[in-house]
């Protein structure tokens, strides 16, 4: 549905006039938005097999451990040791331009091999024996968020990562639907009559306050998002659509610091080869289109993209031509002016594995978060990352 038709429909639906404030939205954002740093999270759910993503193409142990699963063909060799899976070819240009930094062996002490729990650990930035009820980005919002739209998840509901102790982001996989929901005239009437100077002091006030903010956030996103903007072609899949919407928001100059996206299906216990190749292709093509889109609009300089998965997979393949849950894995950082592009560190030993036969971690994922917070978002990690973490030098 195009915007004109949509306005007509919603006006009909509500018998209310809708006055678009496009004027504001079409103002040049470049000047005002310069230096407004944004973070885009890409979550690869299911545990991506890092060893078949960034391939140790010169390592006999790798080939011996995976007699039928090791990648032998079409590896995009990046140095003497490591190379891309052929599906990652769209990212080659980023690598060559120094816009991609690959952190190897990222994990945490006493790794958990349950998807559910390990994702929980990554989202809350907890220790493996600690249980937190707020996410790391949520705690960032607690300290620095002003409006729910400061952090947007491209989904129907919020992940724990985006929920703070007392402040949350907003989720939407379709901002027009969000807007239409928020502008139900009944809510408007109720809010117009609502009178209480003590909002948010008690629970009922908090509900009204949240409703007011939800409405204004939905309105803000709708009115400030420019519709015909992108000239960039994206692949046809759900993940690409998420990134396309993120680009639309960023290029429209929304005051959103954090975007959260997700691509699932990486739990490749059986017949991994084609499945992973297809997913990595979706990932790489979509991210490549996204970066081009940002570059065309001059917003890439102020955007950092962090890709992670809850764990890597076992070095040794299993009997079903797949791999089982592992531990440490690679993390991708994409952005302009990276301090250390290419490979941030080399791959951990494939002979010195933990007792499960998994890669040992070298970089704590929370030090990646801490680095992003302090060096990119320019905020203190205090209250956001609970454990003491050193900062790294990739940005």
């Amino acid at each position, binding site marked *: 549905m195009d915007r004109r038709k949509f306005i007509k429909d919603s006006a009909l639906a509500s018998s209310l006039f809708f006055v678009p404030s496009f004027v504001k939205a079409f103002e040049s954002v470049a000047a005002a938005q310069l230096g407004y740093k944004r973070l885009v999270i890409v979550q690869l759910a299911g545990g991506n097999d890092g060893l078949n993503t960034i391939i140790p193409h010169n390592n006999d142990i790798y080939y011996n451990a995976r007699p039928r699963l090791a990648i032998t063909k079409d590896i995009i060799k990046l140095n003497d040791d490591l190379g891309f899976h052929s599906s990652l070819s769209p990212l080659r240009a980023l690598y060559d331009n120094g816009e991609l930094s690959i952190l190897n062996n990222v994990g945490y002490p006493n790794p958990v091999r349950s998807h559910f729990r390990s994702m929980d650990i990554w989202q809350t930035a907890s220790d493996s024996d600690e249980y937190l009820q707020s996410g790391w980005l949520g705690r960032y919002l607690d300290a620095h968020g002003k409006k729910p739209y400061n952090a947007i998840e491209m989904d*129907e509901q919020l992940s724990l990562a985006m929920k703070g102790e007392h402040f*949350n982001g907003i989720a939407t996989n379709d901002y027009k639907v969000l807007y239409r929901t928020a502008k*139900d005239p009944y809510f408007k009437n109720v809010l117009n009559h*609502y009178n209480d100077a003590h909002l948010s002091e008690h629970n009922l006030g908090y509900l009204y306050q949240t409703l007011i903010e939800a409405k204004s956030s939905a309105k803000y996103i709708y009115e400030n998002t420019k519709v015909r903007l992108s000239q960039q072609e994206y692949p046809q899949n759900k993940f690409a659509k998420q990134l396309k919407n993120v680009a639309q928001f960023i290029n429209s100059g929304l005051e959103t610091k954090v975007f959260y996206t997700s691509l699932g299906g990486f739990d490749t216990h059986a017949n991994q080869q084609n499945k992973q190749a297809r997913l990595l292709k979706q990932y790489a093509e979509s991210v490549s289109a996204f970066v081009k889109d940002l570059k065309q609009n001059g917003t890439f300089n102020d955007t950092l993209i962090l890709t992670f998965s809850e764990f890597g997979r076992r070095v040794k393949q299993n009997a079903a031509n797949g791999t089982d849950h592992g531990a440490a894995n690679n993390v991708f950082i994409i952005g302009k002016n990276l301090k250390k592009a290419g490979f941030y560190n080399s791959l951990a030993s494939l002979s010195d594995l933990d007792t499960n036969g998994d890669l040992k971690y070298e970089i704590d994922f929370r030090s990646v978060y801490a680095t992003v917070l302090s060096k990119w978002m320019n905020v203190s990690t205090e209250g956001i990352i609970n454990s003491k973490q050193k900062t790294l030098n990739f940005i």
Partner: protein
Amino acid sequence: MNQKELQHLYWRAGFGMLPKVYTANSKSRKDVVDALFVNSKAISPIHIDLSYLDGINPMDFKKYPSLAKEINEKNIKSILELNYKWIEQLIQPKEVLRERMTLFWANHFVCRDRNPKYAQQYNNTLRYYALGDFRAFVKAISKEAAMLRYLNGKQNRKHKPNENFARELMELFTLGEGQYSEKDIKESARAFTGYNHDFEGNFRLREFQHDNESKTFLGHIGKFDGDDIIDIILENKQCALFISDKIYRYFVNPVPNKNHIEAMADVFFKDYNIENLIRFVFMSDWFYDEVNIGAKIKSPIEFLVGMANTIPVEFENKKDLIKIQKLLGQTLLDPPNVAGWKGDKAWIDANTIMVRLKLASLLFNNAVISLKEHGDFNDSFREKYFKRSKDKLPFKTLPNWEAFLDNFNSIETENLHEYIIQGNLNKGTADYLESLSKKSKQDYCIQLMSLPEYQMC
């Protein structure tokens, strides 16, 4: 008891009540509370059809990968089935207080298992002990297959202790943070070594993996096993206080009152009898204080079950129930981690508040919240618009309005808010409701259910 007190009690001990039940009006508080307990004496365990697991043993999975795959797919469906069954049981409870307590304990002894057999058994254990002896309850939980899997109890062995369960036993289940040392965790973990379960889910102590040596725990020394550890924990009044605090925040008010909680702990510490503790709460004058009525933000399940109690509804597609739980932020049997759902204000974010305020109209009225004011009959084109979009509605439901009209037959439409809303309406909102047409009891009910006030109980 007056209507207001009854309603308050029933929203906390159950999920609201129908005006039909108000004939109890003249009864004393003691009679009403006694009846709650008497009616929850029995136990109705949940049973889903798991016959496809009969005669299967763990070796089969290794031998026949295709069987393993098939069973796995059936297990995923069974977990959904268990979720529907549980929600059904909450909506149509035979033992309302027991079901309410079961829901409470599920977010205390938090556990998640994707094996439907163990998940069902765990859920029924919660139900069995819900109003019973807390001591026996904790001991039973420590031996549940689902818990042994969830917190790595079965990996806890003599020469390779795993502290996960011991830590959470104290931090989340009994004492609260800071009441014990790291040494206490290590020592108590040793006492639980060798705990395991068989394929059917029965507890098995693997003697050769159990550490029989002496342990030093919270100032006691002895060759303790897991049950001994739990006994020692319960000797500490802090445990009674910790549980009382949690019960108070859940059943009375999210803002704790130290005096009331200490009075509860005095009662609970005597014998750790859960029924006595809950009875003490429901019999206390302070439970019915104005400040406690409507003070609590409904959890998604309280919200959903409460609505379905008022307006019986059938879901044509059961999967919609899962979808709704997800959108509201609480899927039964699928807690975020062992700390459970945070609750209270954490239920509410920009997304969930909108879903909540829209849900009644989506489930019961094709997404329409009537805007008709007194003498206003020109809303028809709006209704037509929504009728056209009926096929696009996210959920397919069959609301039973006849049952609603029958249940609320004795209530004048103008007074309906007194029965649907707990606590006070905001003044401005009340004025707005005043201006609305009260021609249709159904419309007014939906309007009320679409208010922030309806989120409170």
